[in-house]
């Protein structure tokens, strides 16, 4: 049991993360102070939430490249609604962004389910469409901090038991995912669909609908993150979180989620997100230009995917087949 844990992806990642923290601590001891680590966790929270949604999608042999655009669109809608009607309560805004995000995600899901269009094509397309729609509804204007109500901006910062609401959202999402994956039929269906679609069909699982559910879930989480993002940074414009979908996919790949489907874990996705979040926060502290970050996450994806392939070597044939499919 213990040796199995030590060989698991989560254990290796935890080790790498601790080593990374130790390395940073040599140059900047203040970085590993508990208060700062809580900041890093809070900063990584959007990535954690999105990576969990993305994990569900990737496990079913799909990919969702539209999450960042979905996030930006829902964030813009929330910000514009707040600017126009400051009286609308936060709970209504939360409900709205989650429903809107889920609706946008379900568009991806429907195209994949009903029309059998490859997920990468669908989400590349919806990614640009969503961004364009933000431009159309906002006419390219920014929604700035002074246009947002104080309650709107305060929500993700509010402290509960010493941690901000944003962090709690990530923790709760992770907890909900643990239950979903291990305790519900849908969670098992995700893995069955990705592991062997044909077998899943024979076991009575509607694989198309499972993929649809994964896209809708990913969309709902993107919508939630959209509001949190916009209220935390107190600004909304067309290009917020631009390119963030790559970070999200990277977090999953680093976390050991196999792009071929059927393999992945909640712990892996969370640790993958934390790994990237730590690097992003540590670069300025150790005096490395933030321009390095993109190249570092690119290298991390390549190393992780090479590592994943080694770890899952027994299934080499399956990986090749589905790689063809994913492309």
């Amino acid at each position, binding site marked *: 049991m213990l040796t199995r844990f030590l060989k698991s992806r989560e254990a290796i990642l935890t080790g790498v993360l601790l080593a990374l923290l130790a390395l940073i601590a040599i140059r900047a001891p203040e970085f590993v102070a508990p208060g700062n680590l809580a900041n890093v966790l809070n900063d990584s929270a959007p990535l954690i939430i999105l990576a969990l949604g993305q994990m569900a999608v990737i496990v079913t042999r799909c990919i969702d490249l539209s999450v960042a655009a979905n996030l930006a669109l829902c964030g813009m809608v929330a910000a514009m609604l707040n600017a126009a009607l400051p009286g609308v309560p936060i709970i209504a805004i939360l409900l709205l962004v989650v429903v809107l995000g889920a609706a946008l995600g379900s568009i991806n899901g429907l195209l994949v389910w009903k*029309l059998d269009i490859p997920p990468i*094509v669908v989400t*590349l397309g919806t990614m640009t469409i969503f961004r*364009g729609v933000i431009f159309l509804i906002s006419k390219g204007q920014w929604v700035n901090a002074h246009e947002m109500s104080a309650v709107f901006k305060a929500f993700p910062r509010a402290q509960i038991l010493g941690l901000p609401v944003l962090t709690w959202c990530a923790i709760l999402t992770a907890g909900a995912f643990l239950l979903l994956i291990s305790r519900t039929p849908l969670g098992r269906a995700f893995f069955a669909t990705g592991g062997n679609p044909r077998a899943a069909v024979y076991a009575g699982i509607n694989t198309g609908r499972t993929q649809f559910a994964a896209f809708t879930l990913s969309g709902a989480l993107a919508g939630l993150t959209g509001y949190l993002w916009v209220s935390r940074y107190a600004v909304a414009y067309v290009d917020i979180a631009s390119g963030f979908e790559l970070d999200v996919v990277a977090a999953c790949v680093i976390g050991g989620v196999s792009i071929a489907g059927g393999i992945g874990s909640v712990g892996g996705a969370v640790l993958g997100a934390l790994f990237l979040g730590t690097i992003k926060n540590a670069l300025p502290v150790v005096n490395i230009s933030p321009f390095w970050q*993109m*190249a570092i996450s690119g290298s991390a*994806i390549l190393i992780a*995917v090479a590592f994943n392939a080694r770890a899952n070597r027994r299934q080499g044939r399956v990986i*090749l087949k589905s790689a063809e499919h994913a*492309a």
Partner: protein
Amino acid sequence: MTDTAATERHIPDRLSRPGVRLLRSWEALLLIVAVLIFTANSFASPYFLDAWNLSDATFNFTEKAMIGFAMALLIVSGEIDLSVAAIIALASTAMGAAVQAGAGTPELLAIGLGVGLLCGTFNAVFVTVLGLPSIVVTIGTMSLFRGLSSIVLGDQAYGGYPADFAWFGQGYVWWVFSVELVLFALLAVGFGALLHLTNFGRAVYAIGNNQTAALFSGIRVRRVKFLLFLMTGLMSGLAAICLTSRLGSTRPTIALGWELEVVTMVVLGGVNILGGSGTIPGVVIAAFVMGLVTFGLGLLNVPGIVMQVFIGLLLIGVIALPRLWSRIGARRR
């Protein structure tokens, strides 16, 4: 509906007559769309039907189409390269840095093509030697290549390219025919011949249809794929030369989002995203369609980001419509 069903192929007992097949082909449909857009554009704007304006319009697609040809072969073989735009950024940055060091035009050409080839090799090694899925590898290298470019470039821009370097992106061979347009035509013929007339082209189709069968019939699958990634890298290098020469500068946002437009062009051209089928003439017509759409919308003062919406809708639409169509047809029967 399982996603394995999409890979099953139905082979009819008897082929329809060649003439009928040509008329009902994707390329013919696309050509009609191109003519319709052309006509609509010439009615919508009085400035459209002007030789020089039309010549300017070709710059909208020539560079992307250069990559598109190589990408078409790559997608037919069942792989994909999402790092092409990042390769442009890196190659352009390398050329910009070389100019600061006093390089002349021949050196710049060598650097542009060399960086493209090097990046292509990098992708190829990961996909063919290590056997990793090309989609993740190239998402990774997309981040890596653009990241390297942004490390060198920061938020600065390179300029000051030599005067004779401008010929590639701004020069004209004869009358309204720009250097890029002629290059586009030559490459179209070259890649068309490579895919449709050579053993190599047959091998690309074979790999895309059934990789295992191709391997068993003696095709060196890895070598073919390796070469395809090299070609895509090289073409991205060439596109970087043309684009840099045309813009006269290298900025951090150079060619941002082009990977999407290139893939859209190829898919619009009738290349099956799952591999196995597609033609170069289709990609050529798709290039013109996309060029005409963006140019026409530009004449009507539609902002760039809204054009992206059209491109996105086009991408999903061209794949969704035939599938909807065949589904309705199947239900009627």
